[in-house]
């Protein structure tokens, strides 16, 4: 089966990607610009494959994926701050093991909280179909962003505090409403990101090739027939949605802990669309494509700085062109042209 073979291709791609950049890093030939992009690239790769699980495998258009990323990101930041506040500030210096430990905890809790958010949002959202579902995910993405605008978190002697009132800030500020998180200790590493990406791929691909994944795809292809075959539709839609949210949360934590400050606005509708562009360009349902598209489209604009003003414009044009080319019956026929036989039509 084609799908199972692709699985190993994806692991190899990630390993090669890691090896190449690790070598470039250690030999110091990597420009500082690109160096700073490595972790964001990996984060977006995770975002792309996780969104592809919802869009390609489950067949639902989610326009609020960045919302889950931000839930993971700010949860990760809070977890890190809480853990660090309990230890000697110098304990982290040079202690890679400790650093990875904190990162892992932050990512896992970030993923878990994002999964809970995905579950809470998924229950109402997944009762809807098509365009309505898309617009409601967009609404939830905006709600998450707006909620973060009014969330204030600080640590004082008595521990971690959450508040909606900016004036209550006291001790060390962790989250400052619209200003976002400040003074994050950068603990994400490229290697850790690649490991996370491999884990995410492992989970998604094995899920797709199991009975649950089959059920998710069957529901995508024909919901009514899936129900008539005894499948519990909401359960499997929710499974894909929550899994995807958890992965976006993990990506968010990885991403946030690579910067010293991060604002909620970073994860707005535009970010959701950006990830959607990766998925669409890589091919809906095609994980390898998502990986490559996410990597290239994050790296290329950085390398072609002078064109940066045209970047989003080019994305828009590419998005439209790809959709037109892949969905227009006439063009498809033209592509298949003399080399392929026309697919047999439904009725004889």
């Amino acid at each position, binding site marked *: 089966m084609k799908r199972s073979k692709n699985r190993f291709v994806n692991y190899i791609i990630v390993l090669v990607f890691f090896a190449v950049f690790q070598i470039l890093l250690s030999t110091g030939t990597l420009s500082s610009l690109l160096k700073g992009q490595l972790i964001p690239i990996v984060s977006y790769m995770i975002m792309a494959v996780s969104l592809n699980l919802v869009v390609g495998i489950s067949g639902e258009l989610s326009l609020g994926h960045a919302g889950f990323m931000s839930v993971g990101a700010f949860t990760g930041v809070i977890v890190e701050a809480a853990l660090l506040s309990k230890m000697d500030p110098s304990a982290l210096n040079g202690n890679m093991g400790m650093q990875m430990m904190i990162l892992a905890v932050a990512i896992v809790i970030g993923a878990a909280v994002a999964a809970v958010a995905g579950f809470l949002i998924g229950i109402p959202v997944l009762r809807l179909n098509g*365009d309505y579902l898309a617009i409601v995910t967009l*609404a939830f993405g*905006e709600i998450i962003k707006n909620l973060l605008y009014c969330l204030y978190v600080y640590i004082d002697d008595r521990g971690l505090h959450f508040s909606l009132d900016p004036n209550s800030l006291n001790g060390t500020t962790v989250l400052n409403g619209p200003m976002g998180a400040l003074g994050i200790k950068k603990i994400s590493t490229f290697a850790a990101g690649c490991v996370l990406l491999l884990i995410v791929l492992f989970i998604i691909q094995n899920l797709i090739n199991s009975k649950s994944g089959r059920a998710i795809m069957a529901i995508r292809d024909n919901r*009514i027939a899936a129900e008539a075959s005894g499948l519990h539709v909401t359960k499997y839609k929710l499974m894909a949605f929550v899994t995807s949210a958890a992965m976006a949360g993990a990506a968010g934590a990885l991403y946030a802990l690579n910067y010293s400050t991060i604002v909620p606005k970073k994860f707005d509708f535009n970010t959701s669309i950006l990830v959607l562009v990766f998925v669409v360009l890589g091919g809906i349902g095609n994980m390898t494509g998502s990986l490559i598209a996410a990597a290239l489209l994050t790296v290329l604009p950085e390398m072609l700085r002078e064109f940066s003003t045209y970047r*989003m414009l080019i994305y828009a044009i590419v998005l439209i062109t790809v959709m037109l080319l892949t969905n227009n019956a006439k063009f498809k026929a033209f592509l298949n042209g003399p080399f392929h036989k026309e697919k047999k039509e439904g009725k004889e």
Partner: protein
Amino acid sequence: MLTYLINGISLGSVYAIIALGYTMVYGIAKMLNFAHGDIIMVGGYASFCAMSYLGWPPAVAVLFSIGVCTVLGIVIERLAYKPLRSATSLAVLITAIGVSYFLQNVALLVWTSNPKVYPNIFEKIPPITVGEAQVSGVTMVTILANIVIMIALTLFTGKTRMGKAMRAVSEDKGAATLMGINVNFTISMTFAIGSGLAAIAGVLLCTAYPNLVPTTGAMPGIKAFVAAVFGGIGSIPGAMIGGILLGVIEIVARALVPDVPSDIFVFAVLIIVLLVKPSGLLGKTVREKV
């Protein structure tokens, strides 16, 4: 309180005019035209340029911007949506998002991200006082425009040949074709009308909130869609009621709970409506044929 209510109705009227465009396009082409909000922005810029750079009088500038948007609507439909008539709704929606991004980024290149200050074209209309509240010229014009458009559209879809053709196409494209209706032309006309309305909405919106940037249309566009869903997508009076209710909710929420962004309430309304009555206030439920 009365002031909030009037401001809410005014903002809601803008949403309603935009929502009418959404609802008509959705009803007939069965697609969510995500770029609809950005046509508002184009309408705003077109009228702004006509007035500020070419020195045209406001009335001419408004007509010019309606013309620009109408043509733009038709062109977008022809180039981007028509080839996807038989594609999945996922593909169409992604394309529409692409168009929305395209318009925003072209606007960004042409007019930069520096906000343009839109002139108050209704400043000559004296404000009137209703009880304790002062109603400005733009507020009155907006509410009036909404009522006129609403009546005109109802008459148009109900009485004219074109309007009947539109309703026929929205019911069943195949059957409409067999009855000799030119479906492609009808859909183009729908886009033209929707985009023309968006231009009017753009002028009204920019007059009320004079900061014009390339993303001006995005949020009102999404909220207008919320309004259309609220009222029942496909229904003209539904769009109007949904729009006004949403405007009032937004303004009142902003006044009562200033600490919490009012968008939260707007979107919460959408979610609640879709869960309680997915077909909206005045919409009809459609069963999937098995």
